[in-house]
């Protein structure tokens, strides 16, 4: 009675999930992004209890739940903490290789910002490298308003 199982061809359905998303950035994030867009400045939020400046900014401190954080401008320049150079192309990548991903500790921040690093020479990438943000010309309030970081 189960002969049919062997005889049946394996059908595969090539489908997709295409649901568009609009993520609300919120008041705190909007202040960060409009400042980035309009003034090319990067803002972190400071928790006095933890004595830490967070970037990306937070409305509340995730560690102590302090709700009274204050804005603190951080530099658009900082130190590379870690990095990788992808050796493959993928449609999720916003740019073509060669480029690196890096975590950058901006001067004045206590946490690192993950972003893209380009413009480096052979063997130049290493922890401790000083990098600086390069801003897009036409900015629309998005994390990619920073086009990338590059060595100072």
């Amino acid at each position, binding site marked *: 009675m189960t002969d049919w199982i062997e005889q049946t061809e394996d059908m595969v359905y090539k489908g997709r999930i295409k649901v568009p998303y609009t993520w609300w950035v919120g008041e705190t994030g909007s202040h960060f992004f409009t400042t980035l867009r309009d003034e090319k400045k990067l803002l972190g939020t400071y928790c006095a209890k933890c004595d830490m400046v967070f970037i*990306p900014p937070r409305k509340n401190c995730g560690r102590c739940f302090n709700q009274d954080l204050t804005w603190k401008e951080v530099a658009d320049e900082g130190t590379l903490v870690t990095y990788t150079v992808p050796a493959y192309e993928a449609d999720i990548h916003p740019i073509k290789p060669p480029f690196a*991903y890096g975590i950058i500790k901006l001067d004045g921040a206590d946490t690192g910002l993950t972003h893209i690093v380009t413009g480096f020479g052979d063997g130049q990438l290493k922890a401790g490298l000083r990098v600086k943000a390069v801003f897009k010309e036409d900015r629309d309030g998005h994390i990619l308003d920073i086009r990338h970081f590059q060595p100072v």
Partner: protein
Amino acid sequence: MDKVGIVGVGQTKYERKKVGETFFDMIYEVTVKALDDAGLTIDDIDNVITVSNDFWDGRTISSMAVQDACGSRHKDISTVEGDGVYGAFYGAMRVLSGSFGTTLVVAHNKCSQSRMNQITNAMFDPIYTRALGLDAITSSAMQARAYMDAFGITAEQFARVSVKNHKNAKNNPLAQIALDLTVEDVLKSRLLADPLRLLDASPITDGAAAVIWANEAAARKAKKAPVWMKGVGHMSDAYHLGDRDLARSPALVGAAGKAYAMAGIDDPLKQLDVAEIYDAFSYMELMWYEGLGFCPEGGGGKLMDAGVTQMGGDLPVNPSGGCLSANAVLVAGLARLIECVLQVRGEAAGRQVKDCSTALAHGINGPCGQSHCVMVMGK
């Protein structure tokens, strides 16, 4: 605390692409296998926990695909979306609550059906990070680099993990990739994202797994002696990669500390007989050695070099071949736990660790091992 133990286990063979099988088919297979292993019938199962992920499955409410396949009709059921060790932990809690004598825990994934880059990109925050295009490989590569830089760990040491686990897999008939490799082979394999290479990474895998928990009374009905849960703990680090010290895993230290305290373990290297830990990438195994207290911070590479975690060493790690040899995401944690059960039972055949009475299973959730779950199993 009352006792809860595993009395039945079942796994599919792990394969690159099970083109003729649905989630439903795989879950039925492992449910029947686990019941047979336990000598129980579906009527002996009091409730069910399923483990799946809506993104991987391409289905919101991914658990709906398997309800009838795991025999959950007319039973309580719930779903953990995360690694299988977490699902197993919740299943054990439901027994410990006194509400149920047994829990069936099943997990499925067919990683072949989707695009890994897109699915793992969705781990990242849509407002601040996702548009950068990170995925599991590039984020892990940054962690691997941070770990190397912090402690002078080398690519050769990473490669030794790959050599060991792929070799161990040769004794595991369910493993997907079993290979005799040299360190050279790993170092010459295709670069994915510096410093990680193809043979440092786990494969794309389809598969499913099941375990059956029982309390003492229900376990008496099973045909095999239970392997008891001796200790358990889970903990999450911060989310944004830049918030964390990626070279260290304090959340694993915390999770393991809790599990060890429950299990009465103060010297894990000595007191554990085997460990199955989540090596989605080779470097992770070394980092997790440290978080699990098998060696001091920064000592993962040296522990590997000393051969301690090889088959025949003081604490063999991943005799099953680990995630590097088969990584049906989420299922992988349950596979770690099942290997522990087989080892403690003495049923691990060609990969059996001698005199095994205490085993550790470990799973992770989130990017770069943000959240860890550790479970100690024993006689």
